[in-house]
């Protein structure tokens, strides 16, 4: 017999106090401040902004501090805060072609106008632990140079001139917004891109990797990867014109994919697209691969039954806050549920034993 109970308030309060003490750690070690996290753990901050779906480096840094460095917990805090914000409006689509790039590389064209600009990348580091960082050191200074091209044209534009790549014709349709309306399947590409850009980096990476290993293979090249700042413009109704309301860092990846043609399309290169808040290139490349895999239907490709081709599977499992919420709730009290399971199994067991005894007796 289950009797309803309540309680645990004192235990919970004390657990919170202990959490705060553990968060601070050894008090003889100086406390981190939010600006230190924002400046020195900037890629963690970027990930929290991208998956929290809110561009605000100070808030993301605060969330990381509060979450003791648990990034999914930090993303949860940002998502919760985001829901309290009144929606002022939406921006004009950002012009990534006009990005002030700190990094811009192409794996397909060596001599791309504007050049191959490596930027602050881990790519050519040896992945050896640098023990100098464990000691207090001097502030490093980057080398400077001259002659960075003021314009970095899109790589896909070159292929486009010959008609060798599928076009992305501009349009001004109002995109669906998954933060305002429930997901609907089949989803439009705009909705898929929104879900992917805020999706869990590990999940999207795993899905992208599965396409490379043959589950929905689509032969991607990184046509272009660029990281830099863009201005965000918004129409201000009370003024009657648009102003820039800020500047954000974005990572954009365009893949160029082999495509041998189908019943409906002639042979040409096709594209996958990734665009993510912050300096987040692993995520942006992954997003582009998954975006391309999910386009099998519109391009008339075969559905191989690969997980990365199944948009409902991909989109409904990409969100780490939904996933962690449902997963972690099972550790909370389920005493009543379990009590009924217990009654059931006792009853079924007793019946089975009774049947066995009768069989033996006959």
């Amino acid at each position: 017999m289950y009797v309803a109970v309540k309680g645990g308030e004192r235990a919970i309060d004390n657990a919170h106090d202990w959490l705060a003490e553990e968060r601070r750690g050894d008090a003889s070690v100086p406390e981190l401040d939010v600006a230190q996290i924002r400046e020195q753990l900037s890629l963690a901050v970027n990930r929290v902004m991208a998956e929290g779906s809110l561009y605000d480096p100070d808030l993301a840094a605060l969330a990381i501090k509060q979450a003791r460095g648990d990034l999914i917990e930090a993303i949860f805090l940002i998502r919760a805060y985001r829901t309290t914000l009144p929606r002022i409006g939406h921006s004009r689509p950002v012009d990534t072609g006009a990005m002030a790039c700190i990094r811009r590389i192409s794996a397909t064209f060596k001599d791309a106008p504007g050049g191959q600009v490596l930027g602050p990348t881990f790519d050519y580091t040896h992945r050896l632990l640098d023990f100098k960082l464990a000691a207090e050191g001097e502030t490093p200074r980057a080398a400077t140079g001259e002659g960075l091209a003021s314009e970095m044209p899109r790589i896909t534009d070159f292929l486009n001139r010959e008609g060798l790549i599928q076009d992305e014709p501009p349009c001004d349709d109002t995109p669906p917004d998954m933060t305002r309306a429930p997901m609907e399947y089949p989803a439009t590409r705009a909705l898929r891109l929104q879900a992917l850009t805020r999706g869990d980096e590990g999940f999207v990476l795993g899905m992208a990797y599965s396409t490379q290993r043959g589950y929905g293979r689509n032969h991607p090249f990184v046509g272009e990867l660029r990281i830099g700042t863009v201005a965000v413009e918004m129409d201000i109704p009370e003024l009657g014109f648009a102003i820039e309301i800020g500047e954000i860092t974005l990572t954009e990846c365009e893949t160029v994919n082999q495509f041998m043609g189908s019943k409906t399309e002639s042979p040409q290169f096709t594209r996958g697209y990734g665009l993510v808040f912050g300096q987040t290139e692993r995520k942006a490349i992954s997003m582009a691969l998954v975006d391309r895999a999910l386009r099998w239907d519109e391009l008339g490709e075969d559905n191989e039954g690969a997980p990365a081709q199944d948009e409902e599977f991909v989109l409904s499992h990409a969100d780490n806050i939904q996933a962690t919420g449902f997963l972690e709730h099972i550790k909370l009290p389920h005493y009543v549920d379990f009590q009924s399971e217990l009654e059931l199994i006792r009853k079924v067991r007793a019946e089975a034993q009774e049947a066995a005894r009768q069989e033996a007796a006959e």
Partner: protein
Amino acid sequence: MTAQDDQNEARKGWMSLLAKSPAQRLADLTGEITDWPGFEWLRPPEVGGVMVRGRTGGTGAPFNLGEMTVTRCALRLATGEVGHGYVQGRDKAHAERAALIDAMMQTERAEELRRAVLDPLETQLQAAKASRAARAAATKVDFFTMVRGED
């Protein structure tokens, strides 16, 4: 282009600059100004989110990328000019300063503010941009042609 368009273009320029300026820098620059005009709020500062959009493939159909924090307000000077503040982030004092400057830029104090506030902000923004571009330029790859097989 009409005179109104010119005015709007100029106003767009300073409002955009104020939106992108670091809050502390604007506070420092306006700290020197003591004779602020009186004003009434038309919309007290409020923090909100703006949904940032991108385009598929960079040029195609729009999609929702995620939100950014923005603080906005509107005020009217005793002399009648209306100022709007839209700034990135969650700093209400920053939005108030931006709106006040927007309103005062429509008065005879425009030149004074341009010299004392807007020009230094612009200089700093350009310097930061140039410094990033110089670092990027130093990481641009020079390819050397190796000995080729067909010669």
